[in-house]
């Protein structure tokens, strides 16, 4: 026990070590100079930036004086945005998506840390926005009926699909690496539309940025080998069913296809294809037009006179029960677009319950809280609508009713309007008829627009719902005295203000596509419709279809305030139709 009181070896060593440590600490405090603050990480460094990327992060090694950074941070070309700070991290949220096809330089030559030494390690970073690119169906020459990718930034044209395929419709994947399309063999001459098959084709454009190798926890979704353009893959064949219309979900994982049995036309309805799963029929009442919601798990399906919201999740349909009906919107017969956040949608009411407005169409903005707002009412037809990047503006393509002698003046002859309206419905349904007679066509279209048909009879509906891919419109059905003049308008959803952007020449079919960065609209113009205007075609030797680019803003201010103005469109030297921007 005496040893407990004696000095032990530890009593000598420990104070010695403590003394040594103290000396080291004091030396560091006196002689050490704190490292200069610097940027540790810039989240967009060398990244391809897309429209969904709304903000970048700058992480500093030390908390910074916000003002000193905000004043010295420079992005060339200018990108307006807002700063926000959380300790040593700064987020810069863009007011509007970065314009595509540009290389940006970010520089921070000097800044001040909150405390510690003055000075800063200057930082420079670069990032690129994605190339502007769109895909269209070629017209004329070797491009005819093939998918063509046009990189507007590099002015490069790539033929994607094979010459022996006639492309009917297509939709790009969200990663812009692939395109889903339906096509028939060009050799097939009879009943072509019944033989459409679904394919994907690679675009050769990078979809994802590769993470550095040491960041093993981040998965790289796209293997290098797949980036070659023009590799096609069959998604859905036509052996038992005709593949009619399709839609691709926002996450690119789900495809919904309207299919009808080759043998039994009453076996008709939407099918769901998920990556890695067999196609399955959605157990629901057959319906008309449909759209997958941005959440990728629900489907807006035109059923009866309204729109049903149906759950696409397999769990609910695994049991032999009906697909779960999430909601039903009885007044709205058509969904034109759904806001990217899923909180609201642009829907069309055909005003069937109101005898006064029976032959008009109303465009409504409907939120998921049940708020409704009438945006537009027309006795023509609302062809399409697209929300802009922040869901504040709806770009809307409307067919205005004209008479050939008295253009610009709307007719109010109900019967005529009603009849022409069905034609318009046919147009926007892209419901391209191959019908034998005008009467039959109209009847069928009436069924499509769910106007006068007893919907309890599903078989009849199924037969009536013979929608096809393809863009050949039954123009000849138009009554000669009356025609439509399409125009594009921008509607501010909050204020309801409309701004007419462009009036287009009367034509059977128009595709309008808003660029992902919201700066321009791409549309096609059919100069000559081959079947009906043979005489005109003979006189005109240019391309029958051409593409136009319509800028929406002239100044940065207009863009930030989201106030598009009418500007003259630019003709692209491209013969094609159905142009769609890649995301």
């Amino acid at each position, binding site marked *: 026990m005496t*040893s407990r009181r004696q000095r032990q070896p*530890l009593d000598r060593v420990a104070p010695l*070590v403590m003394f040594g440590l103290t000396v080291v600490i004091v030396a*560091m405090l006196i002689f050490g100079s704190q490292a200069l603050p610097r940027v540790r990480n810039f989240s967009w460094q060398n990244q391809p930036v897309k429209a969904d990327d709304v903000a970048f992060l700058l992480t500093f090694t030390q908390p910074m004086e916000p003002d000193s950074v905000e004043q010295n941070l420079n992005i060339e070309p200018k990108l307006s945005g807002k700063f926000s700070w959380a*300790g040593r991290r700064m987020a810069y949220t863009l007011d509007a998506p970065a314009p595509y096809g540009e290389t940006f330089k970010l520089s921070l030559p000097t800044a001040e840390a909150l405390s510690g030494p003055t000075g800063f390690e200057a930082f420079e970073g670069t990032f690129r926005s994605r190339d502007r690119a769109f895909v269209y169906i070629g017209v004329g020459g070797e491009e005819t009926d093939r998918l063509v990718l046009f990189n507007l930034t590099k002015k490069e044209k790539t033929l994607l699909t094979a010459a022996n395929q006639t492309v009917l419709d297509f939709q790009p994947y969200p990663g812009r690496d692939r395109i889903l399309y339906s096509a028939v063999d060009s050799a097939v001459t009879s009943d072509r539309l019944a033989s459409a098959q679904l394919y994907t084709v690679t675009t050769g454009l990078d979809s994802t940025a590769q993470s550095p190798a040491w960041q093993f926890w981040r998965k790289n979704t796209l293997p290098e080998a797949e980036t070659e353009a023009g590799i096609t893959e069959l998604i859905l064949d036509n052996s038992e069913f005709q593949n009619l219309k399709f839609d691709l979900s926002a996450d690119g994982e789900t495809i919904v296809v309207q299919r009808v049995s080759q043998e039994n036309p009453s076996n008709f309805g939407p099918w769901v294809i998920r990556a890695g799963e067999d196609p399955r029929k959605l157990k629901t009442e057959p319906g008309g037009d449909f759209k997958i919601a941005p959440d990728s798990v629900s489907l807006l399906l035109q059923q009866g006179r309204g729109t049903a919201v149906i759950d696409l999740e397999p769990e609910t349909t695994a049991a032999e029960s009906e697909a779960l009906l999430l909601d039903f919107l009885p007044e709205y017969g058509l969904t034109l677009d759904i806001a990217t956040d899923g909180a609201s949608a642009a829907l069309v009411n055909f005003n069937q319950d109101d005898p006064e407005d029976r032959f008009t169409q109303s465009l409504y903005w409907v939120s998921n809280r049940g708020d409704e707002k009438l945006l537009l009412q027309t006795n023509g037809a609302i062809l399409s609508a697209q929300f802009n990047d922040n869901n504040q503006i709806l770009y809307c393509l409307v067919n205005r009713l004209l008479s050939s002698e008295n253009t610009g003046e709307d007719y109010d002859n109900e019967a005529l309007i009603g009849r022409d309206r069905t034609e318009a419905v046919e147009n926007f349904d892209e419901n391209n008829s191959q019908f034998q007679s005008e009467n039959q066509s109209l009847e069928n279209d009436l069924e499509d627009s769910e106007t006068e048909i007893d919907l309890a009879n599903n078989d009849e509906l199924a037969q009536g719902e013979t929608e096809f891919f393809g863009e050949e419109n039954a123009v000849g059905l138009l009554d000669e005295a009356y025609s439509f003049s399409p125009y594009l308008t921008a509607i501010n959803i909050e204020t309801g203000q409309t701004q007419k952007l462009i009036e287009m020449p009367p034509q059977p079919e128009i595709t309008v596509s808003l660029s992902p960065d919201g700066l321009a609209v791409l549309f096609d113009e059919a100069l000559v419709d081959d079947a009906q205007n043979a005489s005109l075609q003979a006189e005109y030797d240019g391309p029958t279809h051409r593409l136009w680019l319509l800028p929406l803003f002239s100044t940065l201010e207009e863009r930030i305030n989201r106030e598009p103005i009418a500007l003259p469109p630019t003709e692209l030297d491209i013969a094609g139709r159905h142009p769609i921007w890649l995301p």
Partner: protein
Amino acid sequence: MVHLNTGFTLFLSLLVEAVPFLLIGVAFSSLLLFFVNEQQLVSVLPKNAFLGALVGSLMGVLFPVCECGNVPVARRLIVQGAPTAVSIGFLLAAPTINPVVFWATWVAFRGQPEVVFLRVICTLLIATSIGWVFSYQPDIGPFLQENVARSRFRDRPKRNLTGGSSNQPSLLQGGTFLQVAGGETLQLDTPAAQRLVANPVQAQSPVSKLQLVVDNMVRELRELGAVLVFGSAIAATVQVAVPRETILGLGQGMASSILAMMALATVVSICSTVDSFFALSFASTFTTGSLLAFLIFGPMIDLKNIGLLLTVFTGRAVFYLFALASLMSFALALAVNLYLG
């Protein structure tokens, strides 16, 4: 009212993030505490002081316990004759160098991966160094509390005779024995303290072991859960109640931030499985070095731990541990602040 709301949100978010790791930590520590036989472990430990300290520091991988569970384990190691360097290394490093804590730190500091690795490296460095320093004391006895030392002293002479092997037949040992089933013997005159501090569970049947595991889990969860709730409340209060400028001013000083975080670590006594989430809430306002100091020093020494340590070591030894650990943590954190930024 706004402050109260913010504070409550902070408190809950800390709690929600941390509770799963606490559960895992408790489950692991209870299971392994009962199924790893320390006696066998002690017999294979290296005798070299430096290697012993290093191995002791790395033993946490086998005993994923936070600082609340490691003192009893270290005590058992000492009583069973493990070298001083091993015991001290284990005592200091085990709460940090173990899979659960590494994972939790990773989850919390994914944005600053260097913190995760620096935490492990610095802890290893400090624990091994202090273990090494303590190994200069050939007989740790004078620095142990009397009951621990006594239970150990009784063991020592025979250890010296047999070269450290504890497999000597009990017939060759002096004392009073009971013959029990299977040829085992139970020494009746073993000091009570030794029987108390030795892991009492090793001899139990599997069913009762399981029962004890569950009991231990519930007990640890109750004790540590309370500490976690308390710690989260402090963290939330500090951030809401103390003016932001004060915190920022304190948190940005090269040395003051380290001192503040070390003091906080000592007072809060938060469990090492969840302390990274606690530190994360300061990540935006405090220097990297100070966060590191919190993460290194907290699991080694804190108020709750000092209480436990004093049941094993004398005040002098605890002071050495405390002083060495704090000086080294401070020096390393300062170096990080100065040279890594």
